[in-house]
């Protein structure tokens, strides 16, 4: 609804039409971080250890940056039913950590976060606000249902190379945007690819009716065609009020040897899967699949043991339970600076962390003044950066399109947790966009 947002709304109503491509890997079901996983960030209980840990984010531990600030900006959706503020807030937490530990060559980063309610006029205006009023030199952390579509020509005109967590097609198909996630199309590709690898006889791909359904559906369609498997494409208006009919339709269309692959936000996917279970339909197809949003422990817990190893979810980011240095730093920063990150440990904050990492890495390579030109040249030059959270090193590059994250995991629920079902697997080049990217990026 136009009550920013949108109250009322399917749009707000509807405004539940959210973004796919983002998932929550939650150890936390509500607000408690790290449900019993080990390298616990609550080693921040002993402040000495925590400070050492978080200070790894900066180059001069303990030294506060006091120079002229480097302004950066980000636009995220925040409306009833859909909120991506966690991504921007986590990036902000990272920047704050950097500012506390030397900054960028002594300069603190000032991060302006604009929230929008899926109103194209508002989104365009906020982009101009960031550039003209806040004078930002870089755009990072954008996570919006439609922002890439609306602003991409503006960013192109001004020479901004955006690092975002995309949703709309333009986040991957334009020269001025590179995403850290795979987004609805490529994540759905991953889920469908896994289903096809299990030799199902038919695929039913159901997604929420948000902008870009045709673009999203084209990926699975190509994969199914290459595997000579019939595919049925469905869309549902969100928010779903009648999950029963949706579940019955999907199961009927898939048949006993078929697969149902979903592309919805966690609440909607949960409602469909729960309806299928209440109707007793969960065993009537060979397997169920889901794009990244389903990758959350909360979903695993809510679904219960009947879905163990029956639902296969494409995961764009490394599970947060692995104890790598990047994960430790992420959890430490979250604990110390991430008060505004209400979702705690999960894909959203992971994405914010990765995007901030990339920006800081780029900023460190800038010599001289921090201008739009110098900063964005540095961002574009990021190559083979190891984020510690993705399957492959991340590259921006000077290409007409960007799909830098095109390798994924597959996870499955197991007694209340999402566990690994398949390690890093490349998304197939059968998807023409993936093929096109691999051709330009080499």
């Amino acid at each position, binding site marked *: 609804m136009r009550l920013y947002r949108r109250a009322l709304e399917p749009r707000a109503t509807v405004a539940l039409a959210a973004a796919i491509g983002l998932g*929550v890997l939650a150890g936390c079901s509500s607000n408690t971080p790290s449900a019993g996983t080990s390298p616990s960030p609550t080693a921040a209980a002993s402040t000495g250890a925590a400070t050492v840990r978080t200070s790894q984010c900066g180059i001069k531990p303990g030294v506060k940056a006091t120079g002229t600030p480097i302004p950066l900006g980000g636009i995220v959706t925040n409306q*009833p039913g859909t909120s991506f503020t966690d991504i921007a807030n986590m990036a902000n937490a990272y920047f704050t950590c950097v500012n506390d530990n030397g900054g960028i060559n002594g300069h603190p980063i000032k991060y302006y976060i604009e929230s929008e309610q899926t109103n194209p006029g508002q989104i365009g205006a906020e982009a101009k606000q960031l550039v003209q009023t806040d004078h930002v030199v870089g755009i990072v952390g954008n996570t919006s249902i439609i922002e890439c579509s609306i602003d991409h020509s503006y960013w192109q005109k001004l020479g901004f190379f955006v690092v975002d967590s995309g949703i709309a097609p333009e986040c991957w198909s334009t020269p001025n945007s590179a995403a850290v996630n795979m987004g609805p199309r490529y994540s759905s590709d991953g889920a469908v690819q896994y289903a096809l690898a299990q030799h199902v006889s038919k695929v039913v791909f159901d997604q929420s009716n948000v902008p870009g359904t045709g673009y999203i559906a084209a990926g699975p369609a190509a994969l199914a065609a290459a595997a000579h498997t019939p595919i049925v494409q469905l869309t549902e208006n969100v*928010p779903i009020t009648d999950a029963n009919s949706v579940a*019955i339709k999907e199961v009927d269309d898939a048949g006993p040897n078929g697969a149902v692959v979903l592309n919805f936000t*966690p*609440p909607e996917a*949960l*409602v469909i899967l729960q309806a299928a279970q*209440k109707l007793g339909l969960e065993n009537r197809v060979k397997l169920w699949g889901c794009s990244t949003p389903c990758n959350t422990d909360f979903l695993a817990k809510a679904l219960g043991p009947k879905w163990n190893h029956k639902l296969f979810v494409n995961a764009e980011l490394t599970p947060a339970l692995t104890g790598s240095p990047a994960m430790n730093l992420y959890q430490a920063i979250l604990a110390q600076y991430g008060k505004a990150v*209400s979702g705690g440990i999960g894909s959203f904050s992971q994405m914010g962390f990765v995007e901030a990492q990339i920006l800081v890495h780029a900023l460190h390579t800038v010599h001289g003044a921090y201008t739009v030109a110098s900063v964005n040249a540095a961002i574009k030059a990021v190559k083979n950066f190891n984020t510690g959270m993705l399957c492959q090193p991340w590259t921006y590059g000077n290409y007409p399109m960007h799909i830098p994250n095109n390798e994924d995991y597959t996870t499955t629920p197991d007694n209340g947790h999402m566990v690994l079902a398949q390690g890093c697997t490349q998304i197939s080049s059968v998807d023409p966009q993936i093929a096109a990217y691999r051709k330009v990026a080499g």
Partner: protein
Amino acid sequence: MPSWQDFQPFIVSGLALGGVYALSGVGTVVLYQATGVLYLAFGAVGAMGALIAWSLTNAGAPDWVAWLVCVAFGGVVTLGYGMLFGPPLARRGPLVKAVATLGLTLVLFGVMDLLWTANGGQSRAITLPTDNGGFMVGQVQVTWTQVIGLGAGVALVVVTGAFLRYTKLGTAMRAMANDREITATLGVPVRRVEAAAWLGCGVIAGVAGLLLADLVALDATTLTFLVISSLAAALIARLRSVTLTFVAAIAIGLVHDLVTPIQSLSNYRDMTPFVLAAVALLVLSRHRVISLSPEEG
């Protein structure tokens, strides 16, 4: 054209959906008959109660406490609204009173999003113990919660119908809904009857909210605006007959789901409540003018 086999499971799910619409629609019409107000905040009040129940359960409170709080919340908020805004608007027409409840809807909606944000992509769900059991009808399973939902709708129709018609309090409520001033001159304790009406309606909204949160989704937007679709059933009954509202709601649910397997219409099936309501009203009004009160001409 799909076969009869294909339609069968949709009959079951259609009845379940009809039960959902019936619960919401009948509740609204009952409130209208008891207070003269089309309580458009019915969904919002129930949704907020359900969210409060969710928070309590999450914090470790026993289920029955959470449910009780949900129902009590519905009663208190509705009673408060009725006592505050009932008297000043008593002399205005039904349209003004209904629009005023839209104001309450907006307030509640804003509060819900402030307190229960859509952070981190997590989803909330209410599960009732009756979700786990059920019985098979054809190829699909029907849970006890769905049966309770349908049963609650029927109970509401029967009980409130009898209450409004055969008890003294009920008759007083109907009289007040018709004309508050004349009823007052007849010696009916207007404020007390009014309070009873609002409180009762609020309790119904709370119970319905809990059931709907389980049957549909625990989401503020969905539950608040479910009332728009269930209004269709109320409109078909011209806000006069609770029984007709129930029947209309079941019909809407059935048609909505039976359209699902028909490929060409499937994407448009969410239009069902609206189209049916519009058609019904236009057919019913083709010979005469329909209005709710003398004030509206």
